[in-house]
């Protein structure tokens, strides 16, 4: 998450500035910062650099602090703010840090914690480091921030930092500034030589009093000035790229506590959340309107159907209501069936036609159902087998011709006489 336009406080070279909406104003003391804001500081009396310590990464900051105290660079205890560290060999770690006198550090942190509004505190070298990480590719680049008689330089890639240091001139005369840029170039060259690397690009962050370098000839790298903006300070216009860089900082890179970061995130989320809530309310409202209209339309068509049904029911008796036709229809069908079914006589005559001489019906059973008749005939033929069987087959053929269906038939013989059984059906015509 990066920042949009808002209040940015900058403590630099002993001065405290407030940047707000293109205007820069100078304040007296950091204790005046009581609003939600970004606060970038170079921590007075601090140093930023890369050193190698003989310890695993876990204890690198402790060892760096101890080295600084043993070297006598500070006359008071210090706190180490780690920007980057990487294990180089076993028990050897490279660490890039800003060392701040502990009293000063506590003063800043206590103020940030005690202020009710969230303040995101960034060391100046965090700004440079973030700029490097956002712009570097595989090959190393340099980021230079020149302000007054100081120039902060950091060299590295996305994953590795080779060099970090602040160079200072004696004063801000053009000669001294020229010498300051010489020192910067010298640091770049020596870093290239020591680490056997090639700097491909140098990014220049400008301040209101920055003087771009007058390097001439082929430097071996491109010097790019970052995009600037115009701001006003005490009625005068200046151009600087610093605040543009600050607005691109990552909130997570701040050294403020989690509560300040969370409060900052929460405040930032209020507007989008309100917008989402408003959108949801609008959706619910319009959804309610839409579905109410749909429900009304459905209710109207339901009422229409109900009234139509009622009118149909009212109309039915006028048409004639229930006509008692079932009994009449059943009786007519019964008469019609009686007129069409083959009579007993007709059936017996059919059998007489089918059965030839010598065939005697022993048993005849006929049942009449709704669909037709079902008959069973047991007959005896007192004749030689050949004649009896021919007669039997002829009987079957004649019965079929007369519209009977032979459901089952069997024939048995004892030579002199034969017996056969027929099961017949005939559907009503």
């Amino acid at each position, binding site marked *: 998450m990066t920042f949009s336009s808002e209040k940015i406080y900058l403590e630099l070279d002993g001065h405290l500035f407030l940047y707000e909406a293109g205007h820069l104003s100078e304040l007296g003391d950091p204790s005046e910062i009581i609003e939600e804001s970004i606060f970038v500081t170079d921590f007075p009396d601090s140093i930023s650099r890369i050193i190698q310590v003989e310890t695993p990464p876990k204890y690198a900051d402790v060892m760096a602090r101890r080295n600084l105290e043993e070297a006598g660079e500070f006359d008071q205890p210090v706190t180490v703010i780690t920007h980057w560290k990487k294990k180089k060999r076993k028990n050897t770690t490279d660490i890039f840090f800003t060392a701040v006198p502990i009293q000063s550090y506590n003063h800043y942190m206590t103020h940030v914690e005690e202020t009710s509004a969230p303040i995101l505190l960034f060391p100046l070298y965090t700004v440079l480091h973030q700029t490097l990480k956002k712009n570097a590719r595989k090959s190393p680049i340099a980021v230079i921030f020149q302000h007054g008689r100081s120039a902060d330089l950091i060299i590295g890639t996305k994953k590795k930092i080779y060099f970090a240091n602040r160079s200072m001139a004696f004063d801000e005369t053009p000669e001294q500034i020229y010498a300051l840029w010489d020192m910067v170039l010298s640091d770049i060259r020596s870093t290239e030589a020591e680490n056997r690397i090639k700097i491909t690009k140098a990014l220049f962050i400008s301040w209101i009093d920055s003087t771009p370098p007058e390097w001439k000839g082929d430097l071996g790298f491109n010097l790019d000035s970052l995009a600037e903006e115009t701001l006003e300070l005490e009625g005068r216009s200046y151009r600087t790229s610093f605040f543009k860089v600050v607005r691109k900082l990552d909130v997570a890179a701040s050294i403020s506590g989690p509560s300040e970061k969370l409060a900052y995130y929460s405040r930032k989320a209020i507007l989008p959340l309100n917008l989402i809530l408003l959108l949801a309310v609008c959706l619910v409202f319009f959804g309610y309107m839409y579905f109410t209209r749909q429900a009304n339309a459905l209710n109207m068509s339901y009422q229409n159907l109900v009234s139509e049904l009622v009118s149909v029911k009212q109309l039915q008796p006028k048409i004639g209501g229930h006509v008692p036709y079932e009994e009449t*229809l059943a009786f007519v069908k019964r008469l019609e069936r009686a007129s069409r079914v083959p009579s007993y006589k007709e059936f017996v005559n059919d059998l007489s036609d089918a059965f030839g001489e010598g065939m005697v019906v022993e048993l005849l059973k006929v049942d009449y159902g709704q669909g037709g008749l079902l008959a069973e005939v047991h007959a005896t033929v007192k004749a030689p087998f050949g004649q009896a069987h021919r007669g039997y087959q002829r009987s079957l053929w004649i019965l079929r011709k007369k519209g009977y269906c032979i459901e089952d038939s069997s024939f048995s013989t004892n030579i002199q006489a034969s017996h056969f059984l027929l099961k017949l059906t005939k559907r009503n015509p």
Partner: protein
Amino acid sequence: MARQQRILARVRTFVEKAKAFGLVKDRWDRYGVEIQESITFPELRQILEQTVSKETYYFEPSSLYISKAKPESAKGEAVEPGKKKQVPSAGTAEKQKADLFLKLRGYFLVRRQ
């Protein structure tokens, strides 16, 4: 709706015509016939000739059983109450010379005058 009206009109017409032609149950008499006895061939012919539909009545056949010998199940079988028994006009002497055993059931449907 219109279809329902058409159907109801046709049904009503049917019922009215059936009434006009007298094709309703309460204007017809129904006589059940159940014969179960040994008979001769002439008697059988006479019976079968009568169990047909004519201009003035219908005969509705139900079941017919004819065998050369009287089955064991029919011996001593009682006639169902309420059933009319059609007895052939043949005399006792002829019965003794019966050729067949007959079981016949059916109904005469006669229109009232």
